[in-house]
């Protein structure tokens, strides 16, 4: 059984933040306002999410689920396409499409096929899983896209040299494409390397705190790591490959001028 937290319990954890703020004031670090703002945002955002999730879980229909999923996807796509230093027209839409197909695809495979939840869209499973997959896919997509676009812009003369020697657009772009996908995969590969050794993942910790058998929690965590890795890699590959198709035309020309700096 989960030990429920009273408002007082939460207030005690907030008191720890007050200690940090006190130290900041004493040392003149000027971090106290930011800390207070971040703490208030945490409380407001999570209370809102808790309220919305409670309602969605109660209603338990696709119609109730859809706005939440759409909101998550839009925010993730906007963040992923907003981080790279360079951009091109239609990048936000591309990011949204790639993340929808990869993250949602991976999550629905998990709920419908792997876990076998009935119905497959049960919000109490789909939303948390999608959140974990989406968060990591967003990072993978944004890192990979940033590296790819920067390579194309900064090393365009190398790509054009290869095109001039008779390379196809793919032969000329394969190095930056491969490197960008590798960069996008670094965070998740690193997490997979140290999972359970350096830190216990949040989901597993949550399940154990909620009273689950650790072996069940471990199996779920392994599945989640694979889902996250699949989502992040497919997202990074998808975004880089579609960006590549935007940046090279059928005449095997590099269209570097469509990129603009933010």
């Amino acid at each position, binding site marked *: 059984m989960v030990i429920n937290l009273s408002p007082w319990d939460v207030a005690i954890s907030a008191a720890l933040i007050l200690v940090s703020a006190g130290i900041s004031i004493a040392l003149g670090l000027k971090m106290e306002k930011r800390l207070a703002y971040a703490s208030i945002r945490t409380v407001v955002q999570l209370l809102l999410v808790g309220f919305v999730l409670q309602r969605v879980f109660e209603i338990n229909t696709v119609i109730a689920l859809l706005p939440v999923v759409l909101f998550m996807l839009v925010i993730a796509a906007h963040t992923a396409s907003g981080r790279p230093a360079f951009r091109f027209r239609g990048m936000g839409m591309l990011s949204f499409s790639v993340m929808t197909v990869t993250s949602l695809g991976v999550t629905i495979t998990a709920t419908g096929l792997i876990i076998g939840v009935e119905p497959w869209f049960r919000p109490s499973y789909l939303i948390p899983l999608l959140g974990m997959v989406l968060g990591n896919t967003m990072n993978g997509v944004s890192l990979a896209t940033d590296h790819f676009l920067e390579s194309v812009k900064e090393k365009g*003369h*190398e790509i*054009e*040299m*290869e*095109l*001039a*020697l*008779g*390379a*196809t657009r793919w*032969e000329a772009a394969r190095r930056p494409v491969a490197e960008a996908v590798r960069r996008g995969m670094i965070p998740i590969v690193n997490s997979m390397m140290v999972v359970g050794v350096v830190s216990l993942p949040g989901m597993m910790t949550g399940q154990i705190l909620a009273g689950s058998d650790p072996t069940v929690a471990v199996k779920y965590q392994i599945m989640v790591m694979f889902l996250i890795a699949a989502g992040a890699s497919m997202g990074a590959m998808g975004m880089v490959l579609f960006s590549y198709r935007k940046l090279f035309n059928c*005449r*095997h*020309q*590099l269209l570097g001028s469509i990129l603009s700096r933010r």
Partner: protein
Amino acid sequence: MDELLSIKGLSVAAGGVTLFSGLDLRLATGEMVAVCGPSGSGKTSMLRAVAGLSDPAEGTVLLRGSTPGETGWPEYRRSVLFMDQRPVLLQGTVRTNLSLPFTYAVNRERAFPEEEAAALLETFGVSSARMDQEARSLSQGQQQRVCLVRAFLVRPEVLLLDEPTSALDQDAISSVETILVEETRKRGLSALVVTHDKAQAERLCDRILNLSDYGASGEGR
């Protein structure tokens, strides 16, 4: 002489401004033509458009009567090979850079001609012992020579050279010019050579094309 490359009604624009228009040029097999003009007249843009690296505003380029699309763009570019003013070499050894074009599908029938590469390096004044040296550690002048060697190894039919001696010392220019002309003639290649130096144009080429004759306003045509 056979007509190898035919440029018809070529117009090139940059940033919405027409640099030149209505350029017609026929390049025969083995012919070397210098492209001259003041800076900003579109010399490099012209070579890039002829190489198909960028689209012209108007006009067509035909290789033996076929458009690049009919020939296949990679095949066309291997035959009509553009070389940048700056020496562009990838990270890796001289050998890696010289063998790069032989990793492309367009050259799949040819293996990297190692002996020819070593001989050409020596011809251009770069010791073949440098084959395994990091290419980017060479001086700019030597990098430019490596780029010229790489271009010849691909065996193009037309060389599009943008200021081919720009990275060389004054002393080296004349020897590289001589080798460049000798190798081009020996191999029966044609060339369009962009240069701002009229004297060099006269030394290297059979005739001179002045791009300012094709200025946007059409004056002097």
